[in-house]
């Protein structure tokens, strides 16, 4: 699957569910939609879970560059 945004994947998933619920599909179409739908679910869940808990801080060095270091917020 080409890299698409979470929102796009979610909208595609919603559209697929709607289509499946309408019941106008042939079996072949339904199976194909189902497979695509499951793929989208997996993709969306993967994005939701992939963002690890990470809070960083950018620090400005003397030479004008920035460095990213962990941010201690506790």
């Amino acid at each position, binding site marked *: 699957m080409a890299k698409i*945004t*979470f*929102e796009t994947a*979610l909208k595609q*998933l*919603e559209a*697929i*569910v709607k289509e*499946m*619920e309408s*019941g106008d*599909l042939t*079996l072949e179409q*339904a*199976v194909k939609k*189902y497979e695509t*739908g*499951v793929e989208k*679910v997996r993709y*969306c*869940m993967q*994005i*939701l*879970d992939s*963002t*690890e*808990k*990470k*809070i*960083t*801080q*950018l*620090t*400005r060095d003397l030479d004008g560059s*920035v460095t*990213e270091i962990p*941010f201690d*917020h506790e």
Partner: protein
Amino acid sequence: MAGHKTNHIYSVSHLTREIKTLLEERFPFVWITGEISNYAAPASGHSYFSLKDAGAVINCVMFKNQKRALKFSLENGLKIMGLARLTLYEPRGNYQLIFEHIAPEGAGALQKAFEQLKKKLDDEGLFDPVHKHPLPYLPQKISVITSGTGAAVRDIIHIALRRFPGCCLQIFPVAVQGDEAQEEIVYAINKVNYLQQADVIILARGGGSLEDLAAFNSEPVARAVFASQIPVITGIGHETDITIADFVADVRAPTPSAAAELVLPEKNRLVRHITDMQLSLSLGMTQKLGFLHQKVDDLHSRLKSPAQIMANFKQTLETCFFRMQHALNRRIFHGRDKLSWISQALFRAAPKVRGQQQQVDDLQKKLFSATKARLDWRTNQIRQAAASLGALNPASVLDRGYSITRTIPGKKVILDAEQVAVQDPVEIILSKGRILTRVERKIDGKDHI
């Protein structure tokens, strides 16, 4: 002329009207400064108050329409500067100021600068909705440009982790007030855009006075926000604080916490939504398969084998045969019925023929007997006639003693004496034999024997 005036007597209305005209012509508009007292705001929405200084008091009013433009509230003790018309209210005979515009005295300079910059940037189109970028639906990395210490950054982190555990925040600490603030904020915005790591920027600051928020009301910050290719959401100060940066930002949140809420969706709800859809998919598929299964079963049950088709034909054939037979039977039965009916009718008509035959027989008998009777009668008649005829036979008369006299010659039967002369020969015929003699004498007339 002065003498005329002293003699002139005014009515109250007339004099009041002249004073009113005099006042309004002399002071059409005035700028005035003073302190508010006796402030009252009845339900009408207009404001009534007095403006005073150390030496005097003037009644004032500001109508609802003009009040709408005010960016602060009027209250007792507030020192103000404003533009007003002087007018006289005739029914009460007092004069008053009707304010068109009021500004708090002293706050003027900063406020004026704010308004001017706002107007300038607005005119340039920096606030135009067409330039607003939409926020990403689910940001992968959020750059937070704010003070590294203080409530704002803590609130944002707190809200972000609550809504979306595991989200990625990148804090870019900057000074948010003071001389450095403006430059640091501009640098941070540019740098985040240069790094291209974050897909949304939160520009935040806790509440403060107009002076504290100066950096966010500065033109460089406004232009940096406008130039940012990454969507910027502002969460500056409290609900009521609106800065120039807020106007330029793609989205304005009333507070730093609200900014975090707007940027991040709730992970729980997303997960639930996706799980629900996954369930719908499975359910939909199961239902679809179940439906198709049923349909195939149904069709299968309706599919006919050749044997069944033959059986059907056979049944049809039998039915036809039965119907044919039945029809035939019915027809025979009907014919028999009809025949019986007709023969009965015939039978009923038969006595009439027999009667007529009897009549014929009778008539025949009658004819026979009648004929016989007539024949008998005729026979009898003939027999009688024959008897009569026998009686009349001359021979039989002769037997009883009678005789016949005939002339000779001529042999004529003599019935009259005249027929003969005396001495003529005559022949007398008797029953047995004849006598030949001569006429002796004749006697005329008829004499009975």
